[in-house]
């Protein structure tokens, strides 16, 4: 049996996995603060002493996440924040560890804790942020939260806490299985004093729908090519069998 069959099959299989990544990106085209995954294919040579050095299998990997900024969408809500540049909001993930996100649709829960839209506590100066009952909550450009407590005049603004904002290079972070980000070494990052947020805005997903769509279409043609190859190998084998058959 010609091993070309398996080489072509590895291409087809990896193409389907790459397609999965683009489908996931496209499904999250309207998820607040979503960051798309890159996907690349690598060639892996399979050397054996008796084999041709031409056997290279495809290997799909997701080497990194694209941390470029999505568009800012105005919402006018006080507790919606968008992080400018390469900064991230620190939250406590469901497993209790510190993780990072750019989804800034914050809210205050019934216990007065500041959480993200899906209920993860937002980290402040060392601990989750608690906001006392307030008439108005303002989030400043550096993440400082100031409130006008119930019954207080506009001159009595009190500063409560400051959202922990961190900055990291793209190669220092990785996506966790719950979609949040964490440092590759697993340690919490230090707060960054220069990160800025804008209140009243949300960051849209940074998926470029046209690009993702084009990738999906081009991968589908690539897939057809590989299937065609499988077909050809099959035909070759069939021809060989026919020629060598006794009857």
């Amino acid at each position, binding site marked *: 049996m010609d091993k070309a069959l398996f080489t072509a099959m590895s291409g087809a299989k990896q193409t389907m996995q790459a*397609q999965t990544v683009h*489908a996931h990106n496209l499904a*999250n085209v309207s998820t607040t603060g979503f960051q798309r995954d890159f996907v690349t294919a690598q060639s892996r040579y399979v050397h054996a002493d008796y084999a041709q050095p031409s056997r290279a299998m495809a290997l799909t*990997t997701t080497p990194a996440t694209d941390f470029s900024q999505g568009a800012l969408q105005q919402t006018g809500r006080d507790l919606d924040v968008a992080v400018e540049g390469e900064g991230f909001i620190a939250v406590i993930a469901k497993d209790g560890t510190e993780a990072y996100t750019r989804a800034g*649709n914050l*809210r205050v829960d019934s216990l007065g804790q500041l959480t993200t839209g899906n209920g993860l506590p937002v980290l402040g100066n060392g601990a989750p942020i608690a906001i006392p009952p307030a008439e108005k909550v303002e989030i400043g450009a550096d993440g400082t939260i100031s409130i006008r407590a119930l019954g207080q005049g506009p001159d009595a603004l009190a500063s409560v806490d400051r959202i922990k904002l961190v900055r990291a290079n793209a190669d220092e972070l990785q996506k966790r299985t719950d979609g949040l980000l964490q440092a590759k070494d697993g340690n919490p990052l230090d707060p960054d004093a220069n990160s800025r947020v804008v209140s009243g805005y949300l960051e849209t997903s940074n998926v470029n729908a046209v690009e993702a769509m084009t990738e999906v*279409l081009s991968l589908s043609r690539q*897939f057809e090519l590989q299937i065609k190859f499988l077909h050809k190998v*099959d035909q070759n084998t069939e021809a060989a069998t026919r020629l060598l058959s006794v009857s």
Partner: protein
Amino acid sequence: MHSALWISKTGLSAQDKQLTTISNNLSNAATVGFKRDRAVFEDLLYQIHRQPGAQSSESTELPSGLQLGTGVKVAGTQKQFTEGSLQITDQALDVAINGRGFFEVLMPDGSAAYTRNGQFHLSADGQIVNVNGMLLQPAITVPDNMNSLTIGKDGVVTAVAAGTSQPQQLGNIQVHDFINPAGLQAIGANVFQATASSGTAQTTTPGTEGVGSLEQGTLENSNVDVVEELVNMITTQRAYEMNSKVISTADQMLQYVSQNL
């Protein structure tokens, strides 16, 4: 089978829910005291197919792995409690809350519900009720020979009895505030119910403790921004189309396999 099919299916159903939210917002663009919803999207979990950093041999490690996401879901809808614009109606029993807070009304089953729709009426017994006949709490009864009903900014309801000139105090309208209004459960008919997430209602006199004051002869419009909803509708439709295109592409790929092999 091709997992892109299922992933795009999650995209379709999320966009579908988004459209439902938008259409509910748009149909309530003229509902007094309506607060618009926003669908909150969240990416689903990732599956690690190849662990990045795993040893590929004793001295080398894989530089990058393969993590495949599994799509998107609507984590929930978030009510936006921004204030709608105020509209002057000059009706004595139209009241708007200018600021935070809710009116409390009594549900038919005896439980409390909260609303920002201040279109009140009088029942046959002279009690102040909302448009569905739910009693305003605490109950205020207006005797039948009363003229010029006045509701003060602090909620004091006064009226002048026929033949006299001295205003008579009938009761107080109170305003109820929640620590997390977005956690209230909307049950239709413009009313909300308290939940564990909203916290319990704190009752105060209008205009004090940070809650809004009352404005008689005024109604609060819906806070739906029609243009914004229409723009959201466009993006939703296009995102839906693209996700369905991925499904048809994945389908064609599988079809190609079964036809050619």
